[in-house]
């Protein structure tokens, strides 16, 4: 019987917290134990899935890792792939941290990409830094506007943001698709895409043939600032408390409404910038499927990281390696690269079930020892 669990009222991610050890070392050990468990579970799933395809698991995984992180070029390529994802995940995480489940990241990424593509193409050419700044600013603004609007609906009218952001994805993506197939189409192209942005609206490559651009510096700055806002600043405290317990926040004088709208705005701005990066680092224009599923990846990763910025960054890095390794594996075997998505879904379940699994094991062990004791 686990009436204990149900009696505690809400169903939470893990069982109610146990007293936290005061020493940092044991906290670190616990954290490492958690990571080890999760990675172990992931590895186990990977081995099973690859073996099931008739390949030797370990050499296959190793060759994938070789592809992903085997050389400075590979690392650069892997990192370059993940740049937008870092920003988007930070964006989603900061909203979660404030109790706003922004699963509209996908739509906000599209909106941001569209804004950057338009500013990049129709304004300029001009000085590169300035042009990029304009593109980023426009995409941040549109992302922020969309997300803040949805945040306002929640703050003012209590419109559930999970569903409203979910639905906004479809509406925004379809609207962008309309724009590129009709009014804003590049007539020289056979598919729906906008005209290309000026060269001055593109980040320049740092390492040749890797796609790693100077955008990496922007991403580092954005991640650092987001971390600082979330964990160190007073406004971050207000947002976190709003997420933790809105009633508490209201009672101590935090403007809950403002915190919700504000955190959503920042979240949307970051997602918008992620969209801008898609345009300004690789594609150079908007097309109907530019952001395919990055927003969902960000939603999942922020969730695994439990919205903690540092752990979000670590998870994005791990995920980028996984995706990159899966692409590498696909080139040397017939293992579909979807394996990385299966793994990430498995890992998120393993991560959130970890405490529950150990509790069940402990219970089984107790039952076993008790039955042994009776005999």
């Amino acid at each position, binding site marked *: 019987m*686990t*009436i204990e*669990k*149900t*009696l505690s*009222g*809400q*169903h*939470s*991610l*893990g*069982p109610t*917290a146990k007293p936290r050890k005061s020493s940092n070392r044991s906290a670190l050990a616990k954290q490492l134990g958690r990571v080890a468990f999760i990675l172990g579970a992931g590895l186990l799933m990977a081995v099973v*899935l690859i073996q*099931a*395809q008739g390949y030797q698991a370990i050499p296959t995984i190793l060759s994938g890792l070789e592809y992903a992180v085997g050389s400075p070029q590979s690392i650069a390529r892997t990192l370059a792939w993940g740049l937008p994802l870092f920003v988007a995940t930070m964006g989603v995480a900061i909203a*979660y941290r404030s109790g706003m489940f922004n*699963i509209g990241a996908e739509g906000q990424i599209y909106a941001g990409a569209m804004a950057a593509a338009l500013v990049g193409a129709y304004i300029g050419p001009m000085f590169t830094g300035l042009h990029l700044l304009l593109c980023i600013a426009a995409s941040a603004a549109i992302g922020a506007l969309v997300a803040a609007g949805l945040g306002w*609906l929640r703050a003012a*009218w209590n*419109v*559930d943001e*999970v*569903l*409203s952001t*979910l*639905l*906004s994805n*479809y*509406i925004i993506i*379809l*609207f962008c698709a*309309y724009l590129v*197939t*009709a009014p804003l189409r590049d007539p020289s192209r056979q598919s729906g895409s906008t005209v290309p942005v000026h060269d001055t609206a593109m980040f320049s490559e740092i390492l040749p043939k890797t796609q790693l651009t100077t955008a990496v510096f922007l991403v580092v700055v954005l991640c650092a600032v987001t971390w600082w806002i979330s964990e160190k600043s007073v406004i971050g405290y207000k947002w976190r408390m709003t*997420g933790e317990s809105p009633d508490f926040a209201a009672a101590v004088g935090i403007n809950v409404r403002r915190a919700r709208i504000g955190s959503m705005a920042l979240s949307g701005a970051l997602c918008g910038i992620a969209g801008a990066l898609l345009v300004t680092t690789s594609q150079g224009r908007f097309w109907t499927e530019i952001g395919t599923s990055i927003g*969902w990846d960000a*939603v*999942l990763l922020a*969730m695994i990281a*439990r*919205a*903690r910025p540092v752990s979000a960054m670590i998870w994005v890095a791990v995920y980028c390696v996984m995706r990159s390794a899966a692409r590498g594996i696909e080139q040397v075997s017939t293992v*579909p690269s*979807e*394996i*990385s*998505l*299966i793994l990430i*879904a*498995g890992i*998120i*379940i393993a991560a*959130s*079930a970890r*405490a*529950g*699994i150990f*509790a*069940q094991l402990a219970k089984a062990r107790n039952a076993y020892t008790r039955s042994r004791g009776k005999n």
Partner: protein
Amino acid sequence: MDLFDAFLSSGVRLTTPILLAALACLPTQWTKDLNIGLEGAMLFGAFGGVVFGLMFQSVALGIAATVIAGIISGLIFGYVITRLNVNVFVAGIALNIFAAAATVYLLRSFFGVKGTLSDPGIPSLPVYNIPFIKDIPVIGAIVSGHTILTYLSWVLVAVMVFAVRRTVLVRRLKAAGEHPAALAAAGGNVNRMRVWAQVWCFALCALAGAQLSVGQLTLFTEGMTNGLGFVALAAVIFCRGKVKWLAVMSVIFGLASAVAVQVNDAVVAPQFAQMLPYVIAFIGLIVLAKTSKDGGIRIATPTMEA
């Protein structure tokens, strides 16, 4: 058949998977474990319908096997969210991603194909053209010419309406959601109720998916649910636990999709036509939040504790 009848007939067909998925999800709302993994569960259902159909060379056996697989999945999902204490929102999102990837993986592994699994050996559900009735305008289009699953979905609506009024089970499901401690104290088993709700959810999602893959079509394609699960989710949220409203919302969404299919791009850009169900849902969400006393619904999102 005139155009209006054709539109209605199309609307009924498009309503069926939405209605089945929404009916599937409803008990999970009662137990406050709203399963947002509908989309993924349906996709597996669609996949199962085709694969088991091929395997048994019989549509009935294929669907039965799919439903059994759904029941087993429901038990596992229920175990994960009750005993392993995984937040249902997290599990649902993971399920959606997992289903999208796993169906591709399985398609490649077992059938060596990507994208579509289409085979002359895939059996399909017959369509029942009811004599006399099929010739009556309007009624004929609505009542006649559908698969058994369409009729079943409406039977299920009636069954659920009755069950809500009269059965002990539904009372306990609702108690498990509204005040779990009360049910536990009264000797009920809260976790069992929560698991039952998920089992029901997956079993019906299996039917909803099968309706897509072997009811409306005889093939499986990657991601063939195309957001239908989320539309059904919206229907569940709007109905506020009431079966009748659930049916009404499903029909509205089905008809909205039918409009999108019928409207030509000379009238309105296809993107706007496609947006229709989502826009209706979005506006509905706002109206619902504005008009309900307790201020809308919250999906059971996880607490983000470290």
